[in-house]
């Protein structure tokens, strides 16, 4: 049997101590130990980006991280991207219906936020390239890309 281990990490801004199985992926630990079910399991092999989170500020797929690795690290999931209310990305995704079934949406939001945190004025090409690792099997990419560009404009204070 794998052992239970205690992990201390900053999860969505809060110092958190939790128990996990030594063989848990971070995706499993976030969903099953911490109840953060906004993190989705899609492919579980690093292709689809539904489980995207940031680890110490960097975008990663939580299915390709072991839970034990995040000891002392800072993890942010979709639940943490807007401490109060909705993030402008979430607001625009809602207003412009930039989602269909919604399974990919949390990963897109986390990935898009990671982009806008670095680049407040991305081009459409930059948005598409950055989000290439997030798959929408409803194929609603145009609305997603347009929403990210509009959210970026909103955040810059430009007329939307």
């Amino acid at each position, binding site marked *: 049997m794998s052992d239970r281990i205690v992990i201390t990490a900053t999860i969505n801004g809060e110092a958190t101590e939790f128990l996990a199985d*030594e063989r848990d992926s971070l995706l499993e630990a976030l969903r099953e130990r911490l109840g953060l079910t906004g993190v989705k399991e899609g492919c579980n092999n690093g292709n689809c980006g539904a489980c995207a989170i940031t680890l110490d500020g960097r975008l*990663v797929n939580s299915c390709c*991280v072991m839970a*034990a690795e995040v000891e002392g690290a800072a993890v942010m999931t979709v639940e943490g991207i807007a401490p109060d209310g909705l993030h402008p990305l979430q607001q625009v995704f809602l207003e412009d219906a930039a989602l269909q079934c919604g399974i990919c949406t949390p990963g897109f939001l986390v990935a898009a936020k990671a982009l806008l945190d670095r680049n407040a004025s991305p081009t459409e090409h930059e948005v598409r390239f*950055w989000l290439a690792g997030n798959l929408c099997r409803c194929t609603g990419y145009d609305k997603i890309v347009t929403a990210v560009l509009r959210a970026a404009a909103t955040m810059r204070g430009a007329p939307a």
Partner: protein
Amino acid sequence: MQNLKYARARDIDEAARLLAEGGPTARVLAGGTDVIVQARERKRQVGLFVDIKKIAAVQELRYDAAAGLTVGAATPCYRIYEDDVVQRLYPALVEATSVVGGTAIQGRASLGGNLCNSSPAADTVPAMIALDADVSIAGPGGGRRTVAAADFCTGPGQNVLAQGEFVVSILFPPPAAGSGAAWERFIPRNEMDIAVANAASYLLIEGGSVSAARIAIGAVAPTALLLDDAAAALVGKPLSDETIAAAAVAAKTAARPIDDMRGSIKQRRHLAGVLVERTLCLAAERAEGGRP
């Protein structure tokens, strides 16, 4: 996930000791983008992950004009392609690392992982070969050795590492004045795919003639290939359409591709030639640009 243990190594000796204690099913964990998936899908039996990322030497990214560029085995792709010095002196490495998987993969995936996973289609391996990189390896009992990147992979999923050995860093010589290098791949979409074929070329042009060339192709043989015949078609002559075409023919001759879901033998052989031509042209442009 199969039953496995996790251990974090703080230095090279501790990693070597943990790997020795873990036996044949102990695996190094760097970025994890391949090995965690392989463990989950039971493509590899893993009893112990030895996480090496807290070891300073495997996170290095350091340039020295005399020694060249040292890239720690676990240094993630994004740190490589965002680095100013790498962008200025090693554009071929930027080209290869910036399209490994998508953004979230580049947040973790590393040169060491790409080497040790030993996929025939590994994107960064032809770049390491063309740039004449050496791979620094640590082993049990304080052992250290260096293997040329060109000799590291021995077959699909296979490489020169003995049990208990692991890659510490990859060393790139400083670029010579008059040299240039480039990397390209073919995939059916623009990003986030596995190479149908890839290639990297390095040229040193002195006095109007090619004085050295290193050309590598990937995804067209069981391992990436260093093409001696293609280089021989160029060296000692001014670079011309004819010599570039001769190098491309040599690349197509050397390629030993397979048919699979990503491409056919015929397409891959053709692509090997096209990508060698394109990377040679770009490498020549960069060499003439007077770097460094």
